[in-house]
């Protein structure tokens, strides 16, 4: 198994700078996920690693060998394309065997390897079928099987699940995780679906506009987003954001959000340490807010229920205060309906404060 | 990387030389004075345009036999003949071809027989029709007339027109035409204002293609025309055999015929590729 190191990768297409200088590494057997919206440069990065694009500058190393000048054939990389690119005029068997046949491996060895992969991916029944006659999930499995059949050092996957319907996607997500654990190849996985990233990755690199905003374990990214973008991108529903100002008066420090305020005297020193502006953004996830039917503490804020989304086991309550909207995801509270007046409490340990530019103040 | 690039260019140069060679020689011959016709130099030691000019006028020919005079004056007539015949045939072929293609595509008229039969016209060697055509046209006193050739060329190139245009028509969703029909337009208006503009590319492609075919057609013209409706290709062959060893003039004559092609050459390139793939692959 191999280690991947990307240093200061930059890729420019004419006028467009798709990748603006990013660095990251992937350890042996680790799965790193490049997560980000369309156009953030994640696919371009992947293609540079594969050798299908030439970086404008930067270096790529596999196990300390610089591979910038190697053609894709010689990099020892497996790639699963977003549209699978399975060879339509060949059978499943030939598709899986292609990489091995091209390396002039012995026929019997090829045969046993193909059968092994087919068993792993549940393709044994369709081995002799022509690739253009397969179902979507079968094609996807062939694409994966084809890539891993050659025992690549690094496996690259470009949004492999985005073409599937929701049900199949869920199933394939778990299957992929199983395959990952069984086969254990160092992987880089590109996606725009944060749920996929959270499930499948050992570490996530959140990308935006050609740059990496944050790299870390899924839990780190979730609990400690370093930038506004990361906070907004991760989590369903999205984190609540409220513009506010940091004011100190009468010895107390508060976050003033016009319609309400929060007492943050206990952490005001940390805030003052991290930033000098007073224009801040308050962020709180919808599961970190509690709803009460009566006011229980001075921190409770009165809001009105504007809308309720019933998700089955839980509900998302759309609460309004003034012009602002706050979403709270929690179990169903009986007796609350649209128009009810309730109170919410922000869990002070879980609020985030952001500099109006992009930094983070506290957890 | 560099090695591959240089290899590519080397091969390209070789192919270019092979492709340009014959024509370069002809050009060189056509610009040479008679003294140089038998020598092996490509670049004429003395450049003359007489070979070209002599084609057009019946002035004293080099050599001066009776036969020469009667041929030497004729290039303008065949040239014009070819222009007229080729153009009119092309126009007719496109018109009729469009009607047929439209009928087959939209109204499923004619069935498979029509399509197959038109395919047949292309497969049959022209020579096989020489005998009946001779008989046919002479019976109707249509020998050596423009109309005879125009009709014939139209019929023969009809297949191409149908084939190419049908491909383009098929690509247009019938819904667009139906929408226009629903708004009260007569079928004819629908065609002229909706369909035709959209398949402009196909019309151009087939027109150019068919024009080339008509312009260069030889066998039937050879058989069916004598002096009045004689076309350029036939004239070239007559000229070549008549002037015997006057290679410069022959070369000039042959090259003159390619001028319309060269002019059309650039327009063709873009459309020919689309025309072929539409009709053939899908």
């Amino acid at each position, binding site marked *: 198994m191999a280690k991947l190191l990307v240093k200061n990768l930059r890729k420019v297409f004419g006028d467009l700078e798709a990748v603006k200088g990013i660095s990251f590494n992937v350890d042996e057997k680790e799965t790193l996920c490049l997560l980000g919206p369309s156009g953030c440069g994640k696919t371009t990065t992947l293609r540079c690693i594969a050798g299908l694009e030439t970086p404008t500058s930067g270096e790529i190393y596999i196990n300390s060998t610089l591979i910038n000048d190697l053609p894709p054939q010689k990099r020892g990389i497996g790639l699963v394309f977003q549209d699978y690119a399975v060879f339509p005029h060949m059978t499943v068997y030939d598709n899986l065997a292609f990489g091995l046949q091209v390396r002039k491996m012995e026929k019997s060895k090829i045969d046993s390897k193909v059968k092994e992969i087919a068993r792993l991916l549940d393709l044994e029944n369709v081995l002799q079928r022509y690739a253009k006659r397969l179902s979507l999930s079968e094609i996807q499995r062939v694409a994966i099987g084809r890539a891993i059949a050659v025992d690549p050092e690094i496996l690259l996957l470009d949004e492999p699940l985005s073409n599937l319907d929701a049900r199949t996607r869920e199933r394939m997500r778990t299957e992929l995780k199983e395959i990952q654990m069984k086969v254990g190849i160092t992987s880089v996985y590109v996606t725009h679906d944060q749920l996929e990233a959270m499930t499948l990755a050992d570490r996530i690199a959140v990308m935006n506009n050609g740059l990496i905003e944050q790299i870390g374990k899924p839990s780190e990214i979730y609990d400690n987003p370093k930038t506004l973008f990361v906070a907004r991108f991760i989590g369903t529903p999205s984190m609540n954001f409220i513009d506010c100002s940091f004011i100190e008066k009468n010895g107390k420090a508060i976050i003033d959000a016009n319609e309400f305020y929060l007492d943050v005297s206990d952490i005001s020193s940390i805030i003052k340490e991290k930033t000098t502006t007073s224009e801040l953004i308050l962020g709180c996830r919808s599961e970190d807010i509690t709803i009460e039917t009566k006011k229980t503490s001075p921190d409770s804020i009165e809001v009105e229920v504007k809308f309720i989304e019933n998700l089955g086991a839980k509900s998302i309550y759309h609460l309004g205060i003034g012009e602002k909207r706050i979403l709270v995801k929690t179990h169903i509270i009986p007796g609350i309906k649209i128009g009810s007046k309730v109170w919410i409490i922000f869990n002070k340990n879980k609020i985030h404060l952001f500099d109006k530019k992009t930094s983070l103040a506290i957890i | 990387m560099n090695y591959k690039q240089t290899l590519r260019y080397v091969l*390209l140069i070789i192919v270019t030389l092979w492709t340009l060679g014959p024509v370069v020689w002809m050009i060189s011959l056509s610009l040479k004075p008679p003294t140089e016709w038998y020598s092996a130099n490509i670049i004429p030691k003395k450049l003359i345009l007489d070979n070209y000019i002599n084609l057009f006028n019946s002035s004293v020919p080099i050599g001066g036999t009776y036969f020469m005079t009667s041929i030497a004056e004729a290039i303008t007539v065949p040239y014009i003949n070819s222009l007229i015949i080729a153009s009119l045939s092309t126009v007719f072929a496109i018109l009729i071809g469009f009607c047929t293609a439209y009928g087959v595509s939209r109204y499923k008229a004619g069935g498979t027989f029509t399509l197959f039969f038109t395919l047949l016209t292309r497969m049959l060697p022209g020579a096989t029709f020489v*005998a009946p055509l001779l008989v046919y046209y002479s019976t109707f006193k249509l020998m050596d007339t423009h109309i005879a050739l125009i009709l014939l060329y139209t019929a023969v190139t*009809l297949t191409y027109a149908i084939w190419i245009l049908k491909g383009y028509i098929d690509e247009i969703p019938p819904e667009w035409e139906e929408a226009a029909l629903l708004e009260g337009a007569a079928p004819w208006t629908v065609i002229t204002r909706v369909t035709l503009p959209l398949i402009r590319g196909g019309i151009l492609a087939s027109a150019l293609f068919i024009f080339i075919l008509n312009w260069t057609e030889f066998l039937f013209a050879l058989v069916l025309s004598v002096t009045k409706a004689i076309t350029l290709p036939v004239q070239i*062959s007559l000229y070549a055999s008549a002037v015997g060893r006057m290679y410069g003039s*022959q070369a000039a004559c042959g090259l003159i015929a390619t001028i319309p092609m060269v002019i059309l050459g650039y327009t063709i390139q873009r459309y*020919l590729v689309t025309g072929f793939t539409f009709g053939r692959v899908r």
Partner: protein
Amino acid sequence: MVFEKIVNWLRQPKNFGKILMMPSSFILNLVLIIPFSILIYLGFTNYIPARGIEWWRSDIVGFANFIKVIGDERFLWALLRTIIFVFTVVPIEFLLGLGIALLFLGNFKGKKIFTSIILYPMMIPWITVGLAFHLLFLDFGPVNSIILKPIFGESVTISWFRDPILAFLTIMLADIWQWTPLMFLILYSGLVAVPERLIEAAKVLGASETQILKRIRLPLIKPLIIVALIIRSLEAFKVFDTVFIMTGAGGPGTATETISCYIYKLSIQYSNLSYASAASLLILIMIALVTRVAIKPLAVKTE
């Protein structure tokens, strides 16, 4: 009133469709089908214009002409020659066209110019091509003086057009020169249509360019290849123009006489129109058979 009725009748799709087909039926009938019937009729008669009897009054001689044609050595040789011509010329054009198409894959400076250069032989009238090659292969022409000089050390004077085999070679060369670009065009547009993704996938899997060619590109353009080969073969079978001007429709002797040349001569030189018709019919039947048996199944496979 009547006008309205006609317009209404026209507006019905079925009728409008029929109207549309009328022009082509008309012209095809007029120009091709009627002569075709005449062709069949003539084959069974003994019409020779020189005799002075009108063609519709000539005697009917049954199958006599046809039997004579089948036994006609010259006819059979012409046919054989044409077949050899087709089966030599078309594969060469295919391979060369494929080679050039591969050469053009990808981007490089001057691609547009090179493309125009490569394509223009197709646009030259066949007669001019024939003339050009005739001039090239003259006794003191450039082929003898310039090209073969380095090989033989001095100017050769090979009389290309007086030797049967060499003459045949020259007409083959002319055809190859003129039609390889067509193969190139068809094959190139097919190759370009192969999805780039598949090529990339093959590359990442370790395939070299040759392997990609053999296992991805060629298999995917197979239908196109078949179509191109069939079309070119049919056209090559009909070769006449270049032969006419280069070797005088068959010279020396009958060494380069293709089947089109022979039938042409029968009609024009020998004026034996009935015999020519019989020969023509036999050729047509042959082509129809070959199409039905060999080509149609191939064509269907490519659908």
